[in-house]
Structure formats: structure tokens, C-alpha cells
């Protein structure tokens, strides 16, 4: 099997070196817990509802670099593509707690669920109340309870950052984040595989002329493998599935995220955006904002995902709220 070339030192140090690099982007605001895979804000207001985000490494900037004003108070990284262990999540929880409890936002995967659940039990033993709202936006899985969390995390973490910064209580904050989760839908497509940096091996194999719709961000197989098709046809297929799922309807106002899985060009994403907007116009759906970027990546996987978030006034205000983090920053809206 071919080994993918990468700019690395000792593969065992990947996560640690990535976190140190992120901290140096915002050293006035961020600090790393010594010896741990936990980043947190230096100044977290007393009485604020805490927000901890996290998951396997290798999807940077999600989640580790989404710590900062208006976003998470702490992030916890696992090894590459593996959920963080409970003791590390607990460290992040303690770092974020300011007396009002802590909200967990992370992707809905068996490993993350188990590790965060154990951490929540450990936190409860220490008198820290927690609530959990998992990202579960990937419509590649039919059963909504079993849906994976992919690029929609970008909006869910953004809304959670707003909710935890502006709401007085944990319950109240969690409710708004749940509304975001319930109105959030994503679908991805993979064109070329990514690799596991520790071994240099590809996480899956895809034929010369094949693409996979619904591919997970860990390289889990998706739901449908197809012949490579023109961009317009692909976008039509994806938008059709997304609109039918919620379902979105005429008159809805949405935020759209076009997420680059790692190795897709901006040019391709604009070709996608062009056709997507034509289709949304035809469907009578208004796009309030579009975010384009490599937010939730899977190493050098080529492909992209589309995320639609149906907005109401509060969710729109949450997205407009200013944030400043190494992974994402925006001024007031």
C-alpha cells in the first residue's frame, strides 16, 4: 500500500504538536493544560455557562481550534480519529466550569458518546453539572438517532458559543443548541481518500473513476458509491437529498456551509456553489449567509460536504454574534 507523504516529525507527537501550534496563534487568549490534550481560554467570566467541545484529532481546525471568545471555553482532542479519553474530558470540564455547569458539544459517534458520558459521571461526582447536545447532522444515515456529526459542527458550536455566552443557565443554553441540532442537515461526498498520519495508509480505497456519497469524515464507508459525474449532477443529487430530509420548504431562510474535506480546490467549491444557489432559488429558499472553508477536515481527503441550517430569529442572531478563535473569527453582524 502506498504511504502518503506528509510534513511530520515523530508520528507519536502529531496531536501534541498540532495543539502547541494552535496555542501560538492566540497565546494571549489560549493556554494548553500541561501534558494534556486540552486547550482553554485564559479568561472565562465567572458565572458563565461553560462550553466544552471535542473529539478525535485529525479534523482540524474542528474541534480543537474553536476555543475563544464567543465559541468554546475549552476543547479536548483525542488521538487522530479517536475519541478523547474521560480523564482528558474531565480536565477540560474543570477548566471551563465557572459555577453554572458545562455544556458538551461533540459528534455523535459511539466512542465519543461513551467517553463523554463517563466524563459526565466523573464531573457529577465533583459537583459539576453537565448537559450534552451531540452534533448529528449527517443524513447519510437514515435513523436520525444514529446520525454522525460532520461539518454541521461549525454551526452547532457557533450557536453553542452564543448560547453559553448569553444565557443564564445550562438548561436554557442547551435548549437553543438543541434547536440548532434539530434544524441542521449535512451530506458529504468523497472523491479521493485521506490517510491515517500515524501509518501513512489510506483510510479507504476508491476506484479511479468512483466517488462515494455520504462518506464519513473518518473515511467510514458512505451509503452509495457512484461513477464520477459532472459537478452539476452531483450537486443536484446532494441538494435534492438535503431538501427532502428535514424537509426544507419554500420561504425557509437558511445558512449554508460548503466544507472542504481537505484537498478540494476553491475553484471546485465555487462550481458547487453556483449550481447549489440556482437550485435553492428554484426551491424558493433564501440563503442568509454562506460559509466556505476547510472547517471539518479528514486529512487530505478530497471532497466536500454541504450543510443547511434552517434559521429562525434567534439562530440567525447566534450566527451573527462576533467570535474570535484560532479556527474561526468574525466581527459583529
Amino acid at each position, binding site marked *: 500500500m502506498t504511504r502518503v507523504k506528509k510534513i511530520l516529525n515523530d508520528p507519536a507527537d502529531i496531536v501534541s504538536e498540532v495543539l502547541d501550534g494552535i496555542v501560538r496563534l492566540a497565546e494571549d487568549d489560549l493556554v494548553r493544560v500541561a501534558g494534556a490534550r486540552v486547550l482553554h481560554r485564559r479568561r472565562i467570566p465567572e458565572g458563565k455557562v461553560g462550553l466544552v467541545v471535542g473529539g*478525535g484529532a485529525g479534523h482540524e481546525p474542528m474541534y480543537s481550534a474553536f476555543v475563544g471568545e464567543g465559541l468554546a471555553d475549552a476543547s479536548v482532542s*483525542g*488521538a*487522530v*480519529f*479517536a*475519541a*478523547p*479519553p*474521560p*480523564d*482528558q474530558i474531565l480536565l477540560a470540564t474543570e477548566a471551563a466550569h465557572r459555577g453554572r455547569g458545562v455544556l458538551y458539544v461533540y459528534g455523535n*459517534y*459511539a*466512542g465519543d458518546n*461513551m*467517553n463523554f*458520558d*463517563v466524563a459526565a459521571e466523573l464531573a457529577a461526582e465533583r459537583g459539576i453539572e453537565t448537559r450534552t447536545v451531540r452534533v448529528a447532522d449527517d443524513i*447519510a*444515515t437514515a435513523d436520525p438517532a*444514529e446520525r*454522525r456529526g460532520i461539518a454541521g459542527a461549525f454551526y452547532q458550536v457557533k450557536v453553542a458559543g452564543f448560547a453559553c455566552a448569553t444565557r443564564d443557565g445550562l438548561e436554557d443554553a442547551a435548549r437553543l443548541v438543541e434547536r440548532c441540532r434539530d434544524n441542521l442537515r449535512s451530506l458529504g461526498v468523497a472523491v479521493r481518500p485521506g490517510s*491515517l498520519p*500515524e*501509518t501513512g*495508509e489510506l*483510510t*479507504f480505497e476508491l476506484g479511479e473513476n468512483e466517488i462515494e456519497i*455520504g462518506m*464519513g469524515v*473518518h*473515511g*467510514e*464507508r*458512505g*451509503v452509495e458509491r457512484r461513477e464520477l459525474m459532472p459537478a452539476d449532477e452531483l450537486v443536484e443529487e446532494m441538494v435534492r437529498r438535503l431538501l427532502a430530509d428535514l424537509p426544507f420548504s419554500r420561504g425557509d431562510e437558511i445558512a449554508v456551509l460548503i466544507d472542504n474535506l481537505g484537498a478540494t480546490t476553491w475553484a471546485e467549491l465555487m462550481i458547487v456553489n453556483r449550481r447549489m444557489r440556482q437550485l435553492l432559488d428554484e426551491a424558493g429558499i433564501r440563503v442568509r449567509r454562506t460559509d466556505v472553508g476547510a472547517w471539518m477536515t479528514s486529512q487530505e481527503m478530497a471532497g466536500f460536504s454541504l450543510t443547511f441550517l434552517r434559521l429562525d430569529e434567534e439562530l440567525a442572531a447566534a450566527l451573527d454574534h462576533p467570535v474570535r478563535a484560532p479556527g474561526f473569527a468574525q466581527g459583529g453582524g
Partner: protein
Amino acid sequence: MADRLDAGDVRERLLAVCRALQAARDELSAADREIGDGDHGVTMARGFAAAEEALRAAGPGLPGAQFRAVGMALMSHCGGAAGIVFGTLFLSMAREIRGDAIEAGDLCRGLRAALEAVARRGGAKPGDKTMLDALAPAAEAACGEPRKDIRRLLAEIAAAAGRGAEATREMLPRTGKAKTLGERALGHPDPGALSLTRIFEAFAGVDAGPRKQGASAAGATTGDREAPR
């Protein structure tokens, strides 16, 4: 005496387990690429490298404490679902191993407790194509007829786990990252069930040897073999 494993024997066997799971890295990752994200071998190798370090750092100790050291290391270092699942396995057993040696009754109670704890934590049942499908028959083998030579019993536990892992080929995944695959997962064993088999084989002193990907070599013949010690 062949009806108990003393603390020194347990330590040697646990170290053998740590080495075996590090050596199985590529086999387990290859199995995981078929139905998961391909990192299971890396995850297990990382956890058992930490467990080996913890065992060596702690030095000789009571069997239960050694199982606990392995469980804690896995919980903190594997990451993913595997850390919780395999950490819970060793920690549950640690709670049932109270004396200065391991006897057949400890294995029975420990594996039953582990089965219950892992199922509760992961929300999976036997038949869902997970490591429980190897753990359940292993626990059953451990709780069979009493007064058995414990080394033979360990080999039978490993063989039962191996048959359980093999049977996962025909199961549809209902949890974990493989669940979206549905029928595409048929024909491939669950990587966690394979890992559990390698753990029991190494603990029993059964030489797994080089093998093709799959659990077929963990078949019935191992049950007749004595541990090499």
C-alpha cells in the same frame, strides 16, 4: 498446582497480552478498514503500549491490581470506543479478582461482570456485531464445569472467543462506525471481537502465530493445547 495462576504468572501473561496486541496492529487495522475507519490496530497498539509501561512501572503486585493497571492505561490511552470498552473489561475483572492468585471462579465472575458492564456502557447486545459476540461465549466457557485445569480453561476461553469472533462475519452491525454499512459489512469479522480473541489467546499462552486477516485460526483446535509454561 494447575488450578490457580499466581501473581508472577499473571504478570507474565498480561505482559504477553500487551506485546501481542502491539504486534497485531496491522492485522487489526486491516480488519477495521473493511468495516470501520481503519484505526483499530493503532488504537489498540497505543493502549497496550501504555498498559505495558504501566505494568512495568508498577512492578509486581496482586493480580487484581495488575488488571486494574492495564484497565486504567487502556481507558486513558486507547481513545475512541475501544478505550472505554477494553478498559471496562479489565477494570470489571480487576474488581472480581481479590486474592493473591487467579482461580477459575474469578475468571467466571470477572468475565460475567465485564460482559454486563460493557453491554451497559456501549448500549450493544450480543448479535450486534461487536466484541460482545466474542466476550459472551468466552464468559460462558469460563463458567462451564468446575475443577478444570486453569491453563486448559484459558485455552478454551480463547477458543470460544475465536469462534464468537468468527461468527460476527455473518452479523449485521447495529452500532459503531460500521452501522451505516448494513449488508456491506457481511463477510467481515468485527475488529473488536478479533482484538478480544487475541487478548485471550495471549493470556492463555496460545501462540496465535502469523495468520491471514480473520479469526479462523482461533478455531476449535486451540482448546486441546496446553499453555507453554
